[in-house]
């Protein structure tokens, strides 16, 4: 089973967990219906769309309402520390959660108590906490964008907001940032660096780069990084090896852009709809 952990931007949304599925243009979880706008819902929708063309295990969500005050995230952290050991998960992806080092460490301990250790993916706020905690190497995948890679490379920065200026650099410097992130043990064993050029990295070594097809407007569209993490989650669940799954995720995101030819005003839900078509092209060897 695939597990995805994250938040919904509504403080009144309860803590829920259960199988996720589409219901029209929304995601249904335990009789709650949530719009696919961006962030964790975009990630979940992307994973579900992949499962329409690739045989994946059931996708299970853990969601709570949180608008940034952190109350919901802490409630979810507490639930997971108490209950994770009762779930049988192959893949576990953590996403938009209030970064909190203490809770992060409790979650890692709870994972140690699971019967089988799932493949661990961290992105967004939970990746920030994982880096801050000094436990980045406990993860199989981080999926930063170029700016977040600079944060991982800055051994002192506790949040991307405090990344030091000399580390923020151009796309050409990304390989150096990859090295620096690994030097200070602030990167997971595998990285997908999402950007104008995507980098697939394993233990500090850049195995693959992808830069076409390329659409500048994707940078402006909220949620286009979340879709890559969602596609990756599903592909790993389907049994693809880490490097292949990483490469296919980045390629799929590029093909959906090519299919839609987006502008900076395009919304991520329009792109997500194109995932099955893009995935079929990849599986048919047309890319």
């Amino acid at each position, binding site marked *: 089973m695939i597990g995805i952990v994250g*938040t*919904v*931007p509504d403080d009144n949304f309860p803590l829920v967990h259960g199988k996720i599925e589409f219901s029209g243009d929304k995601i249904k979880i335990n009789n709650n219906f949530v719009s696919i*706008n*961006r962030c*964790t*819902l975009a990630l979940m929708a992307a994973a579900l769309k992949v499962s329409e063309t690739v045989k994946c295990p059931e996708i299970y969500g853990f969601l709570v309402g*949180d*608008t*940034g*005050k*952190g109350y*919901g*995230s802490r409630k979810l952290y507490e639930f997971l520390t108490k209950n994770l050991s009762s779930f049988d998960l192959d893949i576990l992806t953590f996403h*938009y959660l*209030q*970064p*909190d*080092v*203490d809770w992060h*460490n409790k979650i890692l*301990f709870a994972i*140690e*108590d699971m019967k089988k250790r799932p493949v661990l993916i961290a*992105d*967004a*706020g*939970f*990746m*920030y906490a994982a880096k*801050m*905690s*000094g*436990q980045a190497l406990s993860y199989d995948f981080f999926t930063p*964008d170029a*700016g*977040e890679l600079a944060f991982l490379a800055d051994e*002192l*920065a*506790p*949040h*991307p*907001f*405090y*990344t*030091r*200026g000399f580390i*923020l650099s151009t796309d050409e410097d990304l390989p150096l940032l990859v090295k620096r992130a690994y030097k200070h043990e602030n990167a997971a064993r595998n990285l997908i660096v999402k950007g104008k050029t995507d980098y697939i990295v394993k233990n500090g070594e850049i195995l693959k780069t992808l830069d076409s097809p390329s659409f*500048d*407007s994707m*940078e*402006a569209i*909220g*949620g*286009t*990084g979340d879709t890559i993490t969602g596609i990756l989650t599903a592909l790993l669940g389907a049994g693809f090896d880490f490097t292949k799954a990483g490469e296919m995720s980045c390629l799929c995101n590029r093909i959906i852009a090519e299919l839609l030819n987006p*502008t*900076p*005003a395009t*919304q991520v839900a329009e792109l997500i709809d194109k995932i099955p078509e893009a995935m079929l092209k990849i599986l048919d060897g047309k890319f």
Partner: protein
Amino acid sequence: MLRFFKKLIKPKKKSADRGIMVFENTSEVIRAEKILKKTGRSISVMGPPPEIRTGCDLVIEFPLIEELELKRELSKSNIFPAQTVPVGSGLLQPVSLFHTKDFGDFIMVRAANMKITISKKDRRIVNISGGGCPDVPYLAEKMTGKTLEESPNPGDIGHTLCGYALQLAYEEILKK
């Protein structure tokens, strides 16, 4: 057995998510402490590290991620920290570089990890991207589709450092 020992290992960056607020004088620290504790905040008053001893002998340690919200709460009582820095990092400063990207009909401004994009024609916010804290989707929902003038100010409704970064990007794009 291995798991038992793992649980004995202390995380190596225990205070990595804490920040320090420095004030002009001690009485401000005491007032700030009173206000923040009254609202149930997880803060403590401490002595400052040597590199930020600027006359005040007390600082407030707080969860760094809540910087924006705490500052807003203090500003209601006209208390403004002289400086805010992460714990254990010397004098790290917030990202101050802005990147602007012109897409023709649209313009995007990035501050730290947050990006805001508007249509040049009517200054309508068409997308908000980046970030990782839970107020990002909330802010995006409240702001996208509105003009810069109609949009709520992210500094007023955001709560985290991502919200803070978006506020900086918003202020920058207002100048365009």
